[in-house]
């Protein structure tokens, strides 16, 4: 049944202005197979729905325990206790919570439902040369749903972008390309040892796929998240420039300096503390990068 396939989404951002040209709707698909140390949305990594609890907001009113039909939440000594194995993710505790401390992360959408949201901003896409961007997580992990979405959007002429880390079998990449107008390719480092340390995965497959992608005729924008002392060396930049220099469809490179602005303030203490050790690269880094990439004929966006 067309449009009935389901995907799991953890956020839909309308008037997105940083994920490709024009005014866009960015759809964040849940589930990722790269585990970047600096990730701002750790909940996006797990591909399933989950219940998020923010202890800082909790007022210990106990309404969640009253609302829970499956005994997954109870109050013990005035504190909320949660049994993961009993939880059915029905969401009753979320609606009952008077302090916005509970949230179901990840929502199931049929392709049709998601399309109906995307299409609402069609006028804005047309006026600005924008469209839709599928990001994540790693959107290719929900490949069939993704293809269905891309086809629905292309059928009415909406520009489509795919934000991917390419850490996946090539045939799964290749299968979606006919409906993709632009690839936003995340390159998180050239040095394979550091890449492994920073993301938990090797970059060998990513690089192989990137080279194949470069010759598929789809325009590419490379996005490089840069964190001070993790991947901000000149050697990294030089290697990246060498790597991409010859790509015929490379529109340019975006450097994304680490910033703490998007860090979800509701993260638990440990996760918030962990974020604090990351810093933006030095202020002249972008200039250095621009100089270096420009010398290789690559545009910095």
């Amino acid at each position, binding site marked *: 049944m067309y449009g009935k396939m389901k995907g799991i989404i953890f956020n839909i951002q309308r008037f997105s*202005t940083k994920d490709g040209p024009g005014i866009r709707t960015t759809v964040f698909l849940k589930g990722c197979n790269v585990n970047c140390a600096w990730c701002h949305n750790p909940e996006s990594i797990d591909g399933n729905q989950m219940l998020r609890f923010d202890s800082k907001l909790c007022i210990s009113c106990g309404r969640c325990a009253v609302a829970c039909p499956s005994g997954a939440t109870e109050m013990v000594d005035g504190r909320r206790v949660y049994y993961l194995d009993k939880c059915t993710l029905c969401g009753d505790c979320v609606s009952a919570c008077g302090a916005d401390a509970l949230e179901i992360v990840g929502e199931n959408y049929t392709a049709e439902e998601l399309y109906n949201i995307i299409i609402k901003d069609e006028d804005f896409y047309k006026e600005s040369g924008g469209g839709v961007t599928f990001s994540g997580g790693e959107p290719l992990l929900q490949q069939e749903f993704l293809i269905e979405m891309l086809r629905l959007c292309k059928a009415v002429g909406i520009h489509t972008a795919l934000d991917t880390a390419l850490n996946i079998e090539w045939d799964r990449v290749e299968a979606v390309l006919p409906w993709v107008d632009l690839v936003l390719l995340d390159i998180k480092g050239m040095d394979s040892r550091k890449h492994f340390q920073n993301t938990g995965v090797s970059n060998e497959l990513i690089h192989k796929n990137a080279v194949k992608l470069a010759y598929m005729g789809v325009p590419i924008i490379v996005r490089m998240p840069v964190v001070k002392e993790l991947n901000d060396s000149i050697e990294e930049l030089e290697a990246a420039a060498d790597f991409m220099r010859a790509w015929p469809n490379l529109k340019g490179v975006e450097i994304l300096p680490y910033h703490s602005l998007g860090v979800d303030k509701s993260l638990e203490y440990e996760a918030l503390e962990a974020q604090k050790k990351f810093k933006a690269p030095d202020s002249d880094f972008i200039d250095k990068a621009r100089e270096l990439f420009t010398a290789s004929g690559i545009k910095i966006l």
Partner: protein
Amino acid sequence: MLPEYVEKSIDQWFKKSDEATFFERIELQEEAVKKYYDKPYAVRYGKVLNYILERMTVVINEGEKIAGSVKEIIPDDEQREWAENLSCEWWDDVSEEEKQRRIMFYYSPGWIKRRNPLLFTFGHLSFDWEAIINKGLGWHAERAQGLIDSGEFADDQDKIDFLTGAVECYKAQTVLINRYADEAGKAGNDALSAVCRKIACEPAETLYEALQLIWFVVLISQKVAGCGVFCFDRMDQYLLPYFEKDIAEGRLTEEEAFGLIVEFFNKNNEILDHGDHMSQESDVVKNNLEVTYDDPNYIIIAGLLSKGVSGVNKLSHMMIRAQHELGLRNPFVVVRWHEGIDPEFWSEVCDSMRSNSTVVVYNDETMIPALLEFGIDEEDVYGYGFYGCNDPLIPKKEGGLRQLWVNLVWPFELALNGGSAFCVGAGDWVHDPSANFDMRDRLIGLMSGVYSGDTEGYKEPESMEDFIAGYKKQLRFLLLQYMEKMEEDYLKEQEYSRGRIRIEDLFLQGTIENATNWIAGGTKYHKITMQGSGLATAVDSLAAIDQAVFKEKKYSLDEIRQALRTDFADREDLRIYLDSLPKFGNDVEEVDKYATVVTNAFCDVVAEMNEKRTGLYTYMPTLSTDRDFTGMGACLAATADGRRAGEQISENQSPYMGADHSGVTALLNSVSKVPFHRITGGPLNVMLHPSTIEGDDGLAKLTALFSVFMKRGGMQLQLNVVGREELLDAQKKPEQHKNLCVRVTGYSAYFVQMGKIAQEELINRTVN
């Protein structure tokens, strides 16, 4: 680049004391009022004005081209006490009934007390600026004198007095301008001296002369006579012939023209005092002794001249650039958008808005049909403009502001309770419709206190259609009741105002010709703006009833009624549920459709009032709250959107505070579903984070965003580009953010000069 004089003037303005006062005015006015007490009213008015203008200090600042300033001092304790006592003498023994007969309408007791009963005006209008510069003051005086001499009004002493007073007033203005010519001459500034000498009586022939003449009239009308909140009408249109002639004859370069415009704009800011008049909690506002002190003056640019003919010209571009470079709170520039507007100009407008300059956009495509529906003739409609706060007008053809803030949430409460209100303070039901629209509420144009409705024939609603019918019935009941009371008031005011004059009567169309002030019917148009307030609160509440009672059948109407009556005591679960339902501003059709229901119900009643009216006044619906949305919530019980008793209602056309969380496109889609082709004004505040629209690319996106909103039938847009973090920082370190200028409702303010409550309100708006 701004002219050096302007840079210096802005710098000095920020440094000036909060207490700086044009004290001479109070002293001279008091002397004059005593001296001429035995003259007929209008003649006395002219004599008093003349007395002040003959004596007030002529101030010419070094380096300025356009002159006209007042001398300010910081009053000592004795002076302040004397001035405070004066207002007690004027007003303390005047009953509310008598105040209403004399002045009809005012902001607040604080506002009225600085005003001598003689020199009284509420302002909020547009002079015939074109006639002032094209014909000159001398022509105006001669015309009035000619009407006296013609004998046409010989048998009506009130009219003769009115015209005699007018002649005195025109001549008094000539006196002041001539004194400027003398002073400039003495100071060796021959150019300024020659300009002043000429325009003291004669028409302007150059851009410089035109702006200088307008400025003198503004200075006198606002700082001396207290006629605040001007609309300058379509300045890019009526100044264009002067500009083109200057350029053609080689008198002026475009850069010099720009310099003059910048100086003129800055003059408007220069005469402002610090503070924010709607932040009544702040001392700066309480202690101010001026008659006008932070009133915005509106300049209208661009827009259609007639069907399919755009008014965008070189001066429109220049005025946007001036506004962009100045970044001041006054003047307030209104750009009239229309289909096919010059894209380059439109992009400049958006760029200027992005830099937080005081520029707002209105849509001709919705405004023109709305004005036509509510009584404006085809021949006048293309000339429409605005004054603060976002009220429409037909410049020069109507007098000052008369308004009612229509609390659109009351009919909801009354519909739910069968016509009675639940009085939060008293803890009981109230039913006393005769107490509605008491004298005080009519005077300040606000539905304060508790309102009762129509209890006749009440039946418990069985469907959403029934409930909506109840909403409409209560709304209609309230507004027709208002009309009846107001029509009586206006008759009394008209009777009182016979033979009297206000400064604006000098420069409106119809007043002098008919020897009748505008209040008594001299002008073509008279209107009362019906400011629909709390749209989103009403919409969300109706949608919640529909969802909870009729669709989901989760709660009965009575269960909700009881919970709202007790302000959700023991029913927090119900409040959380209601709060979690979808809200206006998120592009959800089931909710947004009630924006159409509420707006149409409102417009239908206003249209009915226009059919039934017997007096001079027509009624025009807007969607606007100014900053009164907090006060308007105070007496309302809890509502079905989950709002608690006494909390604020929604602001202007915005979703309820913080309820829009689906992005700015969703917000604009929701709002554009309102049938604005029936609504004649009111603001939509949009807040964007600077990072979302930075760079050339960001500007293109912003321009596209606003274009789509206008094409989809949005009416108005005003933008603040600022992050929460910057506002919080400004609260902590005001000295580092002194020029952070934000759009509040119908006016801009410097954030750090706003009261704490107003600051918090802005911080809590959703930043997209």
